[in-house]
């Protein structure tokens, strides 16, 4: 039994780490979504965090904890700077602006000397351990549970439901939106730092348009009714290609098909409390 476990762990430890990192990214985009902001900049913030943490380890020889902290801090600062002008936009326009920002970040990584150009950074030491990811996720989940009933959480919800009304009630919408944006960037940055220290390398390709869309897809797929949905959704999307391995070249095609079916038949995502309640009633009746 323990042998089986060891074999399983040896084969799938990277997948388990990936699921954990994706769950963090899902939380980071949920945070902005819960404040009514559709930001597609999370992949870029993740990239900034990954490069910062990796460089802190490789060039400065900092301990992992400090490297991770820097990996969260810098994306947070960048978010603060670009958030002030960008968050005046709303809806699709904000999504596009953050996407544009993400592309600029990707091209900067591609061209800077210190980030290793298109080759990226290689030979990052394995520093991430399972308990790091679990501990950070536990802290985040606790934070999200507490957030919901806090003043800040209620302000986020009010802004999401109706920004004009929230403003009229005296909520400082600009600073709350900025808070959600910066916190989301910090979480994504830490996730990027963790990711870099178990995949051993970072390259600009990982932080472009497609990853940005993937993060959003995971969140919506799971359902944005609560913070659990995005985590479940992104975990499933991370595991699905492994489960469908037997389909070979067509496995990602099936991934797409499943996405379509879920969107059509489960419009509130997979993690839908109302749906669960309905199923339970049907089961007991």
């Amino acid at each position, binding site marked *: 039994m323990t042998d089986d476990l060891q074999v399983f762990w040896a084969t799938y430890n990277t997948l388990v780490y990936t699921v954990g990192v994706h769950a963090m990214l899902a939380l980071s985009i949920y945070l902005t979504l819960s404040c009514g902001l559709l930001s597609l900049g999370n992949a870029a913030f993740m990239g900034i965090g990954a490069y910062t943490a990796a460089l802190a380890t490789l060039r400065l020889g900092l301990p992992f904890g400090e490297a991770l902290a820097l990996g969260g801090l810098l994306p947070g600062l960048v978010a603060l700077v670009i958030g002030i002008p960008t968050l005046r936009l709303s809806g699709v*326009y904000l999504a*596009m602006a953050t996407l*544009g920002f993400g592309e600029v970040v990707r091209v900067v990584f591609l*061209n800077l000397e210190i980030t290793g150009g298109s080759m990226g950074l290689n030979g990052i030491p394995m520093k991430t351990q399972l308990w790091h990811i679990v501990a950070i996720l536990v802290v985040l989940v606790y934070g999200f549970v507490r957030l919901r009933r806090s003043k800040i959480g209620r302000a986020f919800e009010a802004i999401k439901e*109706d920004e004009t009304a929230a403003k009229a009630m005296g909520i400082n919408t600009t600073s709350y939106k900025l808070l959600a944006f910066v916190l989301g960037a910090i979480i994504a940055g830490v996730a990027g730092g963790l990711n870099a220290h178990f995949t051993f390398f970072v390259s600009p390709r990982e932080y472009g*348009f497609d990853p940005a869309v993937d993060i959003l897809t995971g969140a919506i797929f799971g359902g944005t009714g609560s913070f659990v949905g995005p985590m479940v959704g992104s975990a499933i999307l991370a595991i699905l290609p492994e489960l469908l391995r037997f389909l070979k070249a067509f496995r990602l095609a099936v991934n797409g098909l499943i996405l379509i079916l879920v*969107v059509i038949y489960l419009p509130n995502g997979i993690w839908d409390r109302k749906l669960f309640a309905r199923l339970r009633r049907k089961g007991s009746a």
Partner: protein
Amino acid sequence: MIAQQLINALTLGSVYALFALGFTLVFGVLEVINLAHGAVFMAGAYAALLLVTKANLNIWVALPLAMLASGALGLLIDQIVLKPLRGRRAHHLMPMIATIGAATLITNAAQGIFGAETSRFPLGTIPEESFQIGTIRITELQIAIVIISFLLMLLLMVILKKTRLGKAVRAVAENPQTSYLLGINVEGVFRLVSFTAAALGGGAGVLIGLSFNAIFPFMGQPLMPKGIAVIILGGMGDVRGAMVGGLFLGVAEVMSVAYLSSDYRDAVAFGLLFLILLVRPSGLFGRVLERKA
């Protein structure tokens, strides 16, 4: 030198415009950011390739047929993926996520069928004549691309502005419910727009496939952020804006490659996009659509 660059920019820009036109049409009328547009673009290029290699057709015969095929694909996506979502009180991003699913499905199915490698048109498919005017060299292909793109765009503009059908499309774009009450076949307009948009996207795919002579399953992917940049430049859902935006992006890219560095090409385009959004969020031609509560 600058004249030559402008001609290259015009060629590239007119294809971008064609691509973005379909994109913006769907956004304007169906209010969906159709992220499967890049997959349709790729499908158009493969359709033309098959028609040329398997059916031995001339490329200029294959082009309209490939456009019909990609139009049919667009219609299929609309009917299977988007129609069930219409009129539902789901998250407003759900249709967009569904088109991501469609894009993944189509792109990876193409990879399963054709393989990941780059396919090329057989020798002699692409007109290779070129004209020398002073120091400027223009190829026949470039002329054909610009003429075809502009004809298609002009045709679309005329239909939208001058015909009853175009009026119906514009009415639905404005307000589907009211259009329905006025007796417009709203579903029909949705179908027509999905078909036309995909046909334009597929046409752009054929033209890009010809000008780089490279067709591969993921060729639509780099076009998606560009398409988005173009419709932001021009204003979301604005047909004229998509044309100007596409040309503008073509010029910006070619000029930054020529005078800055090829490495910063994408950053220039998106840096511009970022700035325009901050200064003029509704784009160059767009109206402010923000709903006040």
